[in-house]
């Protein structure tokens, strides 16, 4: 079966590129799974989403936290344009946990709740990308 050519790019660098069997991302409308021969799609990704790239062939899945951005699919090419992205393997779990706790604390206090809620979302996405269980 044909494979997808996947590129995950952020403005400052190209995070990852390679071939894969399936890409799962979260758009504003909901989760979307892309397999080879998918129709061309341009989607807006949600803030604090998790991207999963199933590489197949026994290779481990690539998981990344993606904060905002776009997904574009055409001719078996998938590009993830992320404003901020972090590979699961690069996430500093302790720091992300810290950030989550802080964000949650300030949500409870009720200060700048919009900012804090977004922070909490990002931290959760990072933890999930790193393979941690998050409530």
């Amino acid at each position, binding site marked *: 079966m044909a494979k997808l050519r996947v590129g995950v*790019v952020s*403005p*400052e660098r190209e995070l990852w590129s390679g071939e894969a069997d399936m890409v799962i991302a979260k758009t504003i409308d909901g989760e979307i799974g892309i397999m080879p021969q998918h129709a061309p799609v341009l*989607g*807006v990704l949600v803030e604090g989403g998790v991207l999963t790239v199933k590489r197949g062939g026994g290779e481990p899945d690539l998981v990344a936290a993606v904060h905002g951005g776009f997904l574009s699919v055409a001719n078996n090419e998938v*590009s993830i344009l992320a*404003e901020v992205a972090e590979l699961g393997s690069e996430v500093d779990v302790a720091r992300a946990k810290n950030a989550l706790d802080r964000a949650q604390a300030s949500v409870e206090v009720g200060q700048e709740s919009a900012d804090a809620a977004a922070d909490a979302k990002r931290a959760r996405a990072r933890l999930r990308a790193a393979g941690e269980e998050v409530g």
Partner: protein
Amino acid sequence: MGAQLRLLRRRIKSVKSTAKITRAQELIASSRIVKAQQRMQAAVPYEREIIRAVTGVVSNTASVDHPLTVARETPRRAGVLIVTSDRGFCGGFNANVLREAEALGGLLRSRGIEPVPYVVGRKGITWHSFRGREMGGQWGGFSDSPAYANAKEIADVLISAFSAEEIDEIHVVSTEFVSMLTQNVVVKRILPLEVEETAEKPETPLPYFEFEPTAGDVLDSLLPRYVESRVFSTLLQSAASEHAARRRAMKSATDNANELIRVFTQQMNQARQAEITQEISEIVGGANALADAAAGKE
């Protein structure tokens, strides 16, 4: 020791220490150009993809009717983003950009549009505040290694001013990095967006996209990102150009200092030789006079 000799020695010493500084600056700049170039390269994939996505949306929707792409009928004020450096020691880098910005301002005024400067880089900010010009916005402190967050901040201010109809056009005056030796000042208009049909025609016709959620929503969030990415690449190019300009300026300063040292050393040697010659002729003269006096007595 003669006064002239001492003076020359002192000047050589001071020129030598200047040469040391400029040489160090030159080396620092050369190493930073490489880094800046790498960052430019790293930003290319994202920019390419975002241009492709914008082209994709535009070619799929019959009429692009987004506020950011519509040209205003009677533009009255235009924002001019001027990208300069934070530090000097880079030759004509800032002067060239500012001169071009002034020229653009004149051109806009002749069309009845009032230019509003938005300035990046401390040198440009000082230039404007010294002349008492009002600025629409100013950012400094990151000109030699801009981050995407900086570009986002700038783009946010520009886009919101544009959306609020405070300004009707946005132009950018910056330096484009062509190569280590060539950097050009360029003037571009970034808003309203002219969605460029890229010069190179794609080999395959662009696919017919589906949109998640809708074409309008995608465009809404895509266009600001596109502007951000344009601003970011402008900042990166400007940073690389700044280092290249600084390297060149510092290299010619070092060369000049070395030439001065050579000339002064020659002059110093001449002065020393003249002094020695004079001393010898004085001694010989004195000895002769003594000898003559002794011969006269006899």
